[in-house]
């Protein structure tokens, strides 16, 4: 009796394992290494079914910080890289890991802060001045501190402001070392200023008493780019399927799909593949 139960359990486990395998037997999919903002904002949930309808290709998104996405793609664990840190992306291509890079869309970074606004920066459109005021007031500022695209952009802003924020790490400058969502949860909890991309903020559900305090500075432009992982470096990369996805993103159909994605009536990403600015 017990032995039979044991055999049945073994059989069940093997069936499970086989079922796991059959789930991946279907080869018409690609893996896209991407960033949390594209996933957390809901863009991919809107975009990918449309792409699958047209081409039958399933897109599997691994959403991590830009830094980690680039490292994963360099290891060959993805067919397409879709992130937002142009200098790192160009390095990825020049190092031979990517075929070429194309602009897809943009939005902008903003700084959110508590309505009490201890550093008196609300309404500003000058990020340099705002950061200097925050540093002067020693008002809490929550940083990603995780080598992500947003973190890299934030570091560029501090540099432009001439403030060595890292020197105050642990004091008023708090590096959470985690994703955008976790940093927003932490930052809103401690009443800190936080730099984030607009899309993640609009779709974010735990805003507490935080609002946008700094926006509209041209420096806060946030460009997203797409890169096909180089099959010369990693022969198993599904170049054809990956290129189909990239071509669609850059086509009028794909660009219209990006523009039409809205949360609470607000457009989150602005397509700019054909601006020729890259």
């Amino acid at each position: 009796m017990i032995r039979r139960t044991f055999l049945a359990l073994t059989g069940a486990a093997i069936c499970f394992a086989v079922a796991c395998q059959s789930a991946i037997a279907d080869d018409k999919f690609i893996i896209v290494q991407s960033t949390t903002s594209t996933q957390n904002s809901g863009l991919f949930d809107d975009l990918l079914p449309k792409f699958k309808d047209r081409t039958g290709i399933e897109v599997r998104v691994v959403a991590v910080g830009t830094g980690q996405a680039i490292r994963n793609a360099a290891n060959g664990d993805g067919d397409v890289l879709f992130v937002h840190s142009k200098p790192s992306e160009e390095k990825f291509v020049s190092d031979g890991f990517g075929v070429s890079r194309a602009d897809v869309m943009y939005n902008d970074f903003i700084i959110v802060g508590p309505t009490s606004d201890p550093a008196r920066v609300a309404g500003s459109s000058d990020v340099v001045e705002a950061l200097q005021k925050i540093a002067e007031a020693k008002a809490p500022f929550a940083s990603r501190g995780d080598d992500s695209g947003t973190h890299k952009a934030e570091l560029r802003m501090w540099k432009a402001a001439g403030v060595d924020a890292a020197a105050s790490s642990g004091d008023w400058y708090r590096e959470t070392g985690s994703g955008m969502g976790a940093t927003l949860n932490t930052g809103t909890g401690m009443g800190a200023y936080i730099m984030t991309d607009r899309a993640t903020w609009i779709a974010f559900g735990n805003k507490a008493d935080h609002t946008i305090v700094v926006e509209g500075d041209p420096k806060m432009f946030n460009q997203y780019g797409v890169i096909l992982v180089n099959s010369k470096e990693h022969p198993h990369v599904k170049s054809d399927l990956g290129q189909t996805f990239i071509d669609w993103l850059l086509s009028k159909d794909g660009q219209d799909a990006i523009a039409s994605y809205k949360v609470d009536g607000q457009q989150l990403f602005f397509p700019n593949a054909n601006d020729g600015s890259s």
Partner: protein
Amino acid sequence: MDSFWSVFGGAFGLVFALDPDLMEIIGLSMRVTLTAVFFACLIGLPLGAAVGAFRFPGHTLLAVSLNALMGLPPVVVGLLVYLLLSAAGPLGPLKLLYTPTAMIVAQMVLVTPIVAALTRQLVEDLNREYSEQYASMGVGPIDRLTSLLWDARYSLLTVALAGFGRAVAEVGAVIIVGGNINHVTRVMTTTIALETSKGNLQLALALGVILLLIAFFVNACVMTLRASAARAAYA
């Protein structure tokens, strides 16, 4: 947080709505964790029993190592398995990264030491009682192991449940090797992490309540099974 208690209403609402996405996620969670625990027991039970019943060179070191490995941080396991399964890693050609199988492997690595270490303790205590009898009856090592495991079977169910608890609640490893891909490798814990990062704290907590209920249900099933088996055995 508007109301802490409304979360529980929300959780029941989610369960009774039988949302197909949620059912898929729960199904995958169970598939991954039960498979991982099964294979962890397959390795951990005999391994733990052997360490518990026999003395050999390096025995103490192995026993201490098993105990220490119970504290393996899931993120570290995730990274190890990622580096193994990555296209750039030694097992890259198997193409297992970002599949449920990768998640099963990661959870197995986490759970096997727990099963082995707890089994070792149980079997060692039992063996102390029986070792003279075994010696006088001239019982061979394999028979000795199986009879010790058989004797400890009801306690070992609790060992398996401890492993299940660790695996089903774990997020650090599966999110790295599974990638939290929608409809492919998204399980309860990675969904909770995702919803938290979206700031949907109430939804995340409601999902946590559901996970707790599932764990409760699995434990209840096993305990019932155990009770009726014990009744049958001693009747």
